[in-house]
């Protein structure tokens, strides 16, 4: 069939419209010299006024990184990254010391406003200025930590959180102000030697969020970090550390975007979660880094290490992720179920379109007695993308009574894409009960016909079916994010039908 005008237009529309966050903010910035060496590591550490132990920690990671080789096992394909051609540190030039949010560079504030991220507490509190496109929820509070390139520019609701005893601040500040907590937990879930990208991150991480919830405290509001890559040729290496002390609860959201550029940019983050006895962390991500254009040019390489350690009895960690962006995603949020009766959850929607490559999944490592885990993964591949679920469920000898349920479903839209499932199920204990199921199919023609016959357009019909397909996961997201995620899904799939 020759390309009709409608098709041509549709393709054009994806090109310009599909990624809404592709703008760039013109702002002066302060950068480390290009390339990576011990000097770069020292430079970053000095910029952050870090204590000596932190610099030593970084240098040790850097030296180890030099001995490691880049992993190749994931089902992703990309040109070799030149690690000397990246800026490892970029920060908006500070004019003076800030005393309130109003003194932040208006350009940055505008950027976050454009993205729909509320940094002005008051406005949101009074409901005057709801986030564009967001739901009207003036009564709901979310504390936001905004990370712009390598530094955190603002953290809202500090006072209120302090009253509850919750520490929520950029990790660079936490290193200075709460060294005892950082030293006790940093690198204990993802050791510096863990893998190539985690080691790189340990050496050069610039900022990120630090959360500590004291015993028995239920964090009074959702915490959120919003990551934005702005500068050209920079890598973003943030580090997040969340500790939920005995009997506490915290829900944490993370969002990310980047400008539209022809070059590929590296994002190698590390997230560490620790839950002690009876504590719970709920970690949600809406990842929408720039995915590259319709010819597969540009986009973010998202090579992330996320891991949670259920250290205490009856503790719980729940990961929810909506992955729609990035040229390449390489990410396995995992749970180490160490404490007896602890539980881990992983809910994921991974959508790939264009030339995107996704290799994502989870690891549930059962070590304690009566631990349980649940994995719900929905992969949707469209265009010429490749979408892989890779997961490990393992029970060690002492993990008596371990339970796992895994369901991973893939949906294919179009015949140029691929959907793959690579689960590893390892049981070393006879009382472990593992169930795994996976299906792959395309949208049933009967269902589409039914919808279209009732007056829906083809795209609306697909949107409806897909939303039904991913419903199980969307339900796990906090409400604001669920709405955003639902919209993202329809944007990601736009132009994939026909």
């Amino acid at each position: 069939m020759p390309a009709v005008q409608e098709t041509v237009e549709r393709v054009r529309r994806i090109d310009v419209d599909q990624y809404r966050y592709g703008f760039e903010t013109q702002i002066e910035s302060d950068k480390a010299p290009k390339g990576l060496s011990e000097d770069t590591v020292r430079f970053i550490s000095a910029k952050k006024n870090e204590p000596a132990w932190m610099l030593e920690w970084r240098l040790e990671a850097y030296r180890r990184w030099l001995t490691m080789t880049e992993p190749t096992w994931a089902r992703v394909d990309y040109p070799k990254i030149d690690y000397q051609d990246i800026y490892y540190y970029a920060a908006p030039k500070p004019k003076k010391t800030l005393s309130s949010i109003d003194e932040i560079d208006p350009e940055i504030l505008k950027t976050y406003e454009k993205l729909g991220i509320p940094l002005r507490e008051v406005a949101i509190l009074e409901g005057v200025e709801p986030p564009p496109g967001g739901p009207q929820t003036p009564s709901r509070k979310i504390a936001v930590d905004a990370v712009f390139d390598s530094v955190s520019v603002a953290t809202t609701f500090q006072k209120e959180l302090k009253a509850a005893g919750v520490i929520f601040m950029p990790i660079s500040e936490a290193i200075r102000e709460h060294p005892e907590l950082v030293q006790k937990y940093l690198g204990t879930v993802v050791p510096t030697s863990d893998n190539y990208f985690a080691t790189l991150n340990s050496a050069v991480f610039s900022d990120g969020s630090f959360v500590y919830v004291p015993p028995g405290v239920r964090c009074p509001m959702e915490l959120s970090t919003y990551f934005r890559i702005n500068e050209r040729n920079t890598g973003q290496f943030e580090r997040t550390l969340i500790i939920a002390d005995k009997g506490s609860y915290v829900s944490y959201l993370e969002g990310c975007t980047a400008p539209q550029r022809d070059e590929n940019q590296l994002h190698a983050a590390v997230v560490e979660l620790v839950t002690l006895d009876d504590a719970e962390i709920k970690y949600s991500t809406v990842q929408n880094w720039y995915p590259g254009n319709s010819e597969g040019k540009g986009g973010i390489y998202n090579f992330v290490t996320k891991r949670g350690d259920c250290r205490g009895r009856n503790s719980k960690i729940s990961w929810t992720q909506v992955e729609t962006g990035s040229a390449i995603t390489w990410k396995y949020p995992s749970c180490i179920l160490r404490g007896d009766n602890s539980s881990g959850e992983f809910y994921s929607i991974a959508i790939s379109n264009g030339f995107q490559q996704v290799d994502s999944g989870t690891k549930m490592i059962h070590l304690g007695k009566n631990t349980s885990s649940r994995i719900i993964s929905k992969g949707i591949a469209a265009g010429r993308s490749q979408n892989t679920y890779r997961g490990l469920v393992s029970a060690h000898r002492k993990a008596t009574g371990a339970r796992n349920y895994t369901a991973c479903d893939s949906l294919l839209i179009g015949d140029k894409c691929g959907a793959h499932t690579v689960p590893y199920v390892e049981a070393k204990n006879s009382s472990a009960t593992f169930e795994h199921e996976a299906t792959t199919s395309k949208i049933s023609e009967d269902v589409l016909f039914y919808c279209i016959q009732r007056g829906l357009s083809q795209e609306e019909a697909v949107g409806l079916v897909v939303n039904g397909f991913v419903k199980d996961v969307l339900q796990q997201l906090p409400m604001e994010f669920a709405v955003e995620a639902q919209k993202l899904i329809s944007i990601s799939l736009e132009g994939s039908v026909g």
Partner: protein
Amino acid sequence: MNVVAKTETGRALGDAFAVARDRLPGKGKIAEQRREAFEAYERLGLPHRRIEDWKYTDLRALMREVLPLAPAPDAAALGRAAAAVKLRAIDGVRRLVLVDGAFAPDLSDLGKLDKGLSIRPLREVLDAGDSALSAQVIATDVSNPMIALNGAMATDGVVIEIADGTVLTEPLHIVHVASGTAPASMFTRSLLRLGRDTGATLVESYLAGEDAKAYQTHDGLIVAIGDNARLDHVRLVEDSVDAFNISSATVSLGAHAHFNTFGLTSGGHVSRYQLTVTCSGEGSKVETNGVNLINGKQHADTTLFMDHAVPHCASREIFRAVVDDRAHSVFQGRIIVRPDAQKTDAKMMTRALLLSDDAEADNKPELEIFADDVTCGHGATTGALDESLLFYMRARGLPEKEAQALLIQAFVGEAIESIASDPLREVAIATAQRWLQARA
């Protein structure tokens, strides 16, 4: 690429190949192919856990070395082999026996072949210089070191050809017997070619003679199923508990062909079976079923690669593992649906039953899908025997072991039932029963 440091026996194998090269059947092009295959093996060496396909079966740790070639069987060895074959004889089949890697005509039944059926020892085919056929037998997947090694070293086997339109009335039974008393390796390779509109049943057994203990069996089977043909295949591994069995089968199907295979592994210290099935004709159908019944320190690995290359094919895999004591069962099943293989219908189900706290079961069912109009799925479960069912039976007076045996029988039953031929199904059930009785 890492240079593999050679161990003493690794070198010994190289020397053995250099010496044996002139004695291995086949000259000219065949010898050339063997040399290439051996070089391919040497490049990679024994597979280890860093190679993804061998993650759970690290031959460098389990096997350490490939033993040198077994000598041709003498009269005593043949005598012991005959006794072993007799013990596991199946009625109503045409028996073809390979002892220590050599075809044994006296123990085999080559009389009164059906019209359209040809059976020849591999050595004879290679020596005769039938180039096209030889090339097909020795042609080898050089990316897999163990298949490459098998191709390089194969001393004998059987070449079976079934002419178009021939439907065999009698199943063929290839029996591999290890009979030598000294530890050694045997390398065999067989070919089965089914023409158009044919039908056949092939049984393969792996047995040990009375004094054969720590031997290594390396076997390869190449099967080509023509259009509209059907092959039923049953494979029983009852090697000695100290033995290694590293085997592979490569099967291709023509249009509207049907392949039904069942494998049962209860013997061997370490076994690995690599089955590759390719649907290369539209409308073909594949049923792959397997059971592992293992205990002690056994390690049994079944690695399946189901390749849907063309549209409108269907495949079903059912796999069951029963693992006791300190045994380790591995199932890796990969279904690939190529870009044009629309309307593929592929399902895989693997279940493991752990009977002891030290047992281990690893499942890795993979889907790799490049076509959108398909229905594919897999499932995997791992667990122990259902306590409430055990209680129910024990409350009715059954001793614990007997109750367990009943549940295990039911557990593996679904896979065994897939065997089409009644007598062969009985043979498989009897083999499973023997394992359960030995356990009780």
